[in-house]
């Protein structure tokens, strides 16, 4: 079959137009992946094309790139699934990481964030005579996060990193959960304290881009939600994010549906005058436009059953 790769290239040594799109038209077998086509391009058409790869089998994590605007592994992405009706496939380097050349990015951003969550066990107490033991059952919930191959695809497509470079990002936070959830680790509270800081677990916007991008089913966002749930259960409830979730749940428990007005006023703290003043113009504007949520918030008729569900789950 014929395919046209539209590759976003970058050459730091060019004096002008360092970034440009170059088209390569190739004849390739139907089973080819995007990476197969890029390697053929480099070997037969244009040896200057820079692409990083190694195993070609979705194990090493070297060939993450954006195909048609979304990150994934070049070696796991079939051309047939990616071509538009004209046989074109758009190929770009990953996002949120500086480009070195063509499809190769500088992953130091990625690694620095991974290092920041101390990605190693920190056991406490005296060393056991033999190995630290963890039961099979206790490790099951960590299987997903242990599947990470550090390819950077989730970081590439993270919507928060686009606007906040201080965010730890999906890969590092998923890695943090790998150790928070490990029964052999003794630094859980210290980790929660660090993850509670600005740029930590509460800065994720829950957009699912990382879940979609991850080629190994790690579902980083789900791991971030696990962190939030377990941190709150461990008493880390003072951040705006934790309070927001708590008050949200309280209003749903009380009436069956969300009381937006209470949520907006209580989340920053009723007596947090600075925050209330800051939010006031938005509130006044909403009021003037008739957009203020109802002041009297009526409960749904069967609210007692909703409350019973809350009580039973809270008892557990």
């Amino acid at each position, binding site marked *: 079959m014929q395919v046209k790769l539209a590759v976003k290239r970058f050459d730091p040594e060019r004096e002008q137009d360092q970034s440009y799109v170059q088209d390569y038209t190739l004849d390739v077998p139907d089973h080819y992946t995007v990476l197969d086509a890029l390697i053929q391009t480099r070997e037969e058409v244009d040896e200057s094309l820079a692409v990083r790869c190694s195993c070609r089998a979705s194990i090493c994590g070297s060939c993450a790139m954006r195909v048609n605007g979304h990150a994934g592994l070049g070696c796991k992405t079939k051309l047939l699934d990616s071509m538009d009706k004209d046989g074109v496939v758009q190929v770009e380097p990953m996002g949120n990481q500086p480009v070195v050349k063509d499809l190769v990015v500088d992953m130091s951003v990625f690694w620095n964030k991974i290092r920041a969550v101390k990605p190693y066990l920190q056991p406490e107490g005296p060393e056991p005579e033999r190995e630290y033991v963890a039961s099979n059952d206790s490790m099951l919930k960590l299987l997903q996060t242990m599947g990470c191959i550090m390819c950077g695809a989730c970081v590439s497509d993270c919507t928060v990193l686009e606007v906040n470079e201080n965010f730890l990002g999906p890969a590092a936070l998923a890695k943090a959960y790998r150790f928070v959830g490990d029964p052999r680790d003794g630094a859980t509270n210290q980790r929660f304290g660090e993850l509670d800081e*600005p740029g930590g677990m509460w*800065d994720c916007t829950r957009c699912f881009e990382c879940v979609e991008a991850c080629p190994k089913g790690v579902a980083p966002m789900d791991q971030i939600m696990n962190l939030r749930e377990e941190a709150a259960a461990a008493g880390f409830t003072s951040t705006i994010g934790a309070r927001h979730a708590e008050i949200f749940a309280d209003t749903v428990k009380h009436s069956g549906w969300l009381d*937006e007005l209470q949520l907006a006023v209580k989340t920053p703290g009723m007596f947090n005058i600075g925050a209330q003043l800051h939010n006031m113009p938005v509130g006044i504007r909403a009021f003037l436009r008739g957009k203020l949520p109802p002041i009297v918030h009526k409960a749904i008729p069967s609210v007692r059953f909703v409350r019973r569900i*809350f009580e039973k789950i809270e008892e557990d």
Partner: protein
Amino acid sequence: MKYAFFPGCVSRGGCPELYPAALKVCERLGIELDEMVDASCTGAGVLQEKNKKLGDTLNARTMAIAERMGYDTIMVICSTCQGVMSRAKYTLDNDDTYRAEINALLAEEELVYTGNVQPKHLLWVLIEDVGLDKIREQVQQPLSGVKLAPFYGCYIVRPSDSLGFDENPERQTSLETLIELVGAETIDFAGKTRCCGFPILTINEKASVNMVANHTGDAKDLGADAMVTPCPLCHLNLDGYQPAAAKQRGKSISLPILHFPQMMGLAMGMSAKELGLQRHVIDTKPVQKKVGQV
């Protein structure tokens, strides 16, 4: 054509213009709605931060109530409600043990989650159930010459495995389909499936507003007259925080944000007032003018 109707919290709260606009469009197209007065909030992903099981149970309860009412489909008008309910369904339908646990929690109300009920956004209902031909018959005031940028909202596009895209691939371009059907022109832009920033508004307002600035600013720069969204939470941010976004960007944006039923209503000849356009923060008159309503 009759559905159990789940209006969600925001269409009756922070975006009260959405609820009547959606109802009017449904009425015009002969869609009958049976409102689920006993359904609770989906949790919007926030409740799930505190306790995922709680969120799944409440959504299982809502789907079980719809089944008891005799329906197999719940119509929603919010991308977030769609996504959160779909995700709960996906989880429950793929884990028998978990489903049994959840059903035990519903037993007191004599409800059973079976998996036979699906949530379905009005956006999808229009295309898949009403059909484009029938909608076209109701377009009395084509939005010719109006350039509209679609903005989906995360939860109606991700995670794709729980949203039925394999069986219904047209869902991925549903907004563009309807924009073209009402006679407007689509302004395609990279941000259309990205995050509006609303979920981090209280946590990092600067980053959240930056997302608003990027999306509305990009669409405006590409020539959009307005943006259209099926998500009221996106609307809250893209409309309500656009003044702050313009300030952050250092230049005016002034891009009206339409709820997607408002776009349909305008094309069906409904007045801007009926559709609640006067309630928007960003003035919608430039769009009204283009469709001959000012």
